[in-house]
C-alpha cells in the first residue's frame, strides 16, 4: 500500500515540476502558486506514505523505522522527502520560486526511478542486527538531511555561476539571467544551505562516532568513510571560515561549494561500498 502511495507521490512531484517549468518560462504568478501548492500536497502525501510504511513494517513483525535506510529505495525516498522539505522552506524564506525548476524535476525523476523504473526492490526488509538501534536512525537521518542541504547549496552555486558568467567567460544570456534570482540572493541561499548542512553534518558525525563506539569499541578508526566525512567537514569549515573573512563569496565561493559537494558524493559512495571497501557497509 505504501509503495502505491509513494508512486502516486512521484506523479504529484512530476506535475509540480511541470508547473515550475511553466512558471519559469511564462512568469505567471498563478502557475507559480499552483506549483507551490502541488509540491506542498506532495510533501504531505510523502509524509503519510512514510508513516504508512513504518506502520506496515510493524504489521509484518519487523518493526523498524524506514529511516534506517537498509535499502536503496528507502534511501532515495527519504532523500527526496528531505530535499522537498528544504526546498519549500527556502522558497518561503527567500520568496523565490526560480529554484523549483532545478530541484523538483530532480526529485520527481528520482522518485519515479525508485518507484519501479529502475527495478529497485521496494519490499520492507528485515534489518540485520548491526543496523538496529535509534542512534543509527539519528545518524543516517542527519547525514541524509545534510547531504540534501549541501545539494541545494551546490544547485544555488551552479546557478550563481550561470547568472554571473556563461561558459567561455561570456556574459550570461539575458533570457536566463532575467529569470534567475539576483546573484546576491543565490549567494545567500548557498551560504544558508551550507550553514544548515554543516550543523546537521556535525550532528551526523557525532552520532556516527557514538554508534562506532558501541559497535566497534572505538569512536574513530580512520575508516575510509570516516576519513571522507572528516575531509568533507573540514572543506565546509574552510568554506565558512573563508566566507566569514570575505576571502571568497560569489564565484569562488560557488566553485568551492561545488567541489565540496563532489567530495560529499564521494564520501556517500564510499559509505555505500561503491568506491572503496569500508567497514561502514553493514554487510561487511
Amino acid at each position, binding site marked *: 500500500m505504501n509503495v502505491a502511495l509513494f508512486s502516486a507521490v512521484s506523479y504529484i512531484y512530476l506535475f509540480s515540476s511541470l508547473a515550475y517549468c511553466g512558471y519559469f518560462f511564462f512568469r505567471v504568478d498563478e502557475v507559480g502558486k499552483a506549483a507551490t501548492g502541488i509540491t506542498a500536497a506532495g510533501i504531505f502525501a510523502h509524509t503519510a506514505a512514510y508513516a504508512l510504511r513504518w506502520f506496515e513494517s510493524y504489521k*509484518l*513483525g*519487523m518493526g523498524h523505522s524506514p529511516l534506517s535506510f537498509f535499502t536503496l529505495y528507502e534511501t532515495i525516498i527519504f532523500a527526496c522527502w528531505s530535499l522537498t522539505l528544504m526546498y519549500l522552506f527556502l522558497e518561503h524564506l527567500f520568496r523565490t520560486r526560480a529554484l523549483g525548476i532545478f530541484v523538483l524535476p530532480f526529485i520527481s525523476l528520482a522518485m519515479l526511478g525508485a518507484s519501479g523504473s529502475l527495478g529497485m526492490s521496494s519490499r520492507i*526488509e*528485515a*534489518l*540485520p*542486527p*548491526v543496523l*538496529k*538501534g535509534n542512534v543509527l536512525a539519528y545518524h543516517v537521518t542527519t547525514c541524509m538531511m545534510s547531504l540534501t542541504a549541501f545539494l541545494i547549496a551546490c544547485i544555488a552555486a551552479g546557478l550563481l555561476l550561470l547568472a554571473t558568467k556563461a561558459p567561455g567567460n561570456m556574459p550570461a544570456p539575458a533570457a536566463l539571467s532575467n529569470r534567475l534570482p539576483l546573484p*546576491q540572493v543565490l549567494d*545567500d541561499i548557498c551560504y544558508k544551505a551550507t*550553514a*544548515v548542512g*554543516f*550543523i546537521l553534518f*556535525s*550532528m551526523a*558525525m*557525532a552520532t556516527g*562516532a*557514538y554508534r562506532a*563506539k*558501541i*559497535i566497534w*569499541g*572505538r*569512536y*574513530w578508526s*580512520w575508516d*575510509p568513510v570516516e*576519513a*571522507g566525512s*572528516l*575531509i568533507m567537514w*573540514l*572543506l565546509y*569549515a*574552510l568554506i*565558512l*571560515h*573563508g566566507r*566569514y*573573512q*570575505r*576571502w571568497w563569496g560569489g564565484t569562488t565561493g560557488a566553485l568551492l561549494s561545488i567541489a565540496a559537494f563532489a567530495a560529499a558524493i564521494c564520501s556517500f559512495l564510499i559509505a555505500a561500498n561503491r568506491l*572503496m571497501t569500508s567497514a561502514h557497509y553493514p554487510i561487511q
Partner: protein
Amino acid sequence: MNRLLNRTLTHMASINFTIMLLVMFLLTILTDTMQDGIISFVRGVRLPGGNAVANWLNGYFSAEVHDSRWFKLLLVLFILNLLACMTKRMPGTLKMLAAPASEEACRMPAAPLFEDRFTVAALRADFEQRLYHLLAERLSRPAVYRTAGRSVFFSQRGKCFHGGFYLAHGGLLLVLAGGLFGQSALSGEMFLREGDADDKVFFNKNGIPCFGKLDYRIRLDRCVPVDPPAGDADSAWRTYRSTISMLREGTHDEKGTLEGYRTLAAHGIRVGQSRSPEKDGPQLTLSLRAGKAGGKHRTFSLRRHQCCSIPETGNVVRLKEVFVSDDYPGASRKKAGRAALAPCAATVEVYGDNRSLIHKSLVTTHPVSLEQPGQEAYEFRITGVEKNDPSSDCMRLLVCTEPGGSLIWIGAAIAIAGFSLIFLLSHRRIRVAIEKSGDGYFITVAGWTSRNPDGLKHYAGLIKELVRHCAAA
C-alpha cells in the same frame, strides 16, 4: 614580553593560521585515504623512476600517517589555535596584554560589510555622550576604547553570536581533549565459557601481547542464539544473546545482557561480544616445571585461552591454541608445523611481572624448555588430553575502557549548539571610530552582520546619518 606574547597570540588566533591548518589537515587525510590509489597510479603511469617513487611511497605509508609525530604536531597546533582564538576574545586577556588595538581588530572582520567615512570640522562638546546613548538605544551599550587622538565605540546586537563562538570552539577543544584521554584507553578481549569468570583482558601494546586487570571479574552466565528476524530466513543474521555478571567485591553482582552488536557500558568499561562463539578445543593437562634446578612440578588443567598463575614466580601462563593430530589432516598440517609429529600440541604464552609476554612456544607431549636471559626458565609438557563436550563453545568478549568518553559527547553537543548559535542567530556589529586630523575629525562607521547583508547596509547607513547629526556642532 607582553608585546611578544601579544604578537604570538595574534598569529596563533588569526583566521589565516586556522585556514592553513584546515588545508594541511585536508591534504594529510586525503593522502592517507587515497594512498593505495596514489601508489598504483604512480606505478601505472610508467614514468622513469616511477617504481622507485612508488616503493618510497609504499615504505612511507607503511606506518599510519595519523600515528606519525608530525600529524600529532598538527593536532597540537590546532588545539593551540582554538585556545588562542578563544583567549584573544576575552577582554581580560587583552587588558592584561595592554592591546586595545588588537581588540578592535578582532571584533570586526578585516573587510566589514559596510564602511563609510565623513569629516566634520568640529564636534559638539557632548558628542561622545550622545553617541554612547545613540548606540545603547539602537544596539547595546557600547564598549569604548581611547588611544591618543582616536576613540572607538563598538556596539553589537545578538551577543549569543559571541556565545556561539565560545561554545563551538570550546566544544571542539573538549572533543580533542577527550580524544587525548582516549589514548590511554584499554581495548582488549577475554574468552569465556558459560560459567567462567575472569578479570584479565588481553591486548597488544606496540605489537607485544599484554594483559590488563579489571577491578572486578566478569562472568559469562549464559550464551544463547537468537532467531533471525521474522520474514528473513537467512541464518547469516543469526545473533547471540549473552548474559554477563560483574562480580564486584563487597557489593551485589550486576547483571547485563549483550545482544548481537549491542554492547553494555558500566563502571567505566564497555563490553561487547563477537558475532558468534568459537568452537572449543580439547582440554589439556599441562605439566609445568618452573625454575632451572629441578623446580617444583605442577600440573594444570587448561582449556584454550585459559590462564593459570604460578605462585612461585607470580607469572601467568596462558594456553593460546590447541592442535590435536586428528583435527589437522591435510591443509591444517602446515599450520601446526612440527606439532604434527606429536599426537597433540599447544601454544603456551608466559606473561611476566609487568603483564607483558616473556615466553611463547609450541609445546608437545615431549618436554620443551623455555629459557630467556634474565627471565625464569620453564619446562612444559602435555601430560594428557581430555575431550570436551562438543557443544561447549567459547565466547569472545571485547572489553574497552572509556577514558574521555564523556568529554567527547559533552564537547560534541556543546560544539553543535555553538554552530547553531553562530549560523542561525542574527548578529549585527557597528563600530564608530573618531580620529583627529589636522583641521577636523574623521568619523568612520563600519558594520558587519552574520545574516541579511542588504538589511545591514541600510541600517548602518541610517546609523551613519544619526552619528553625523549628533556630531554637528
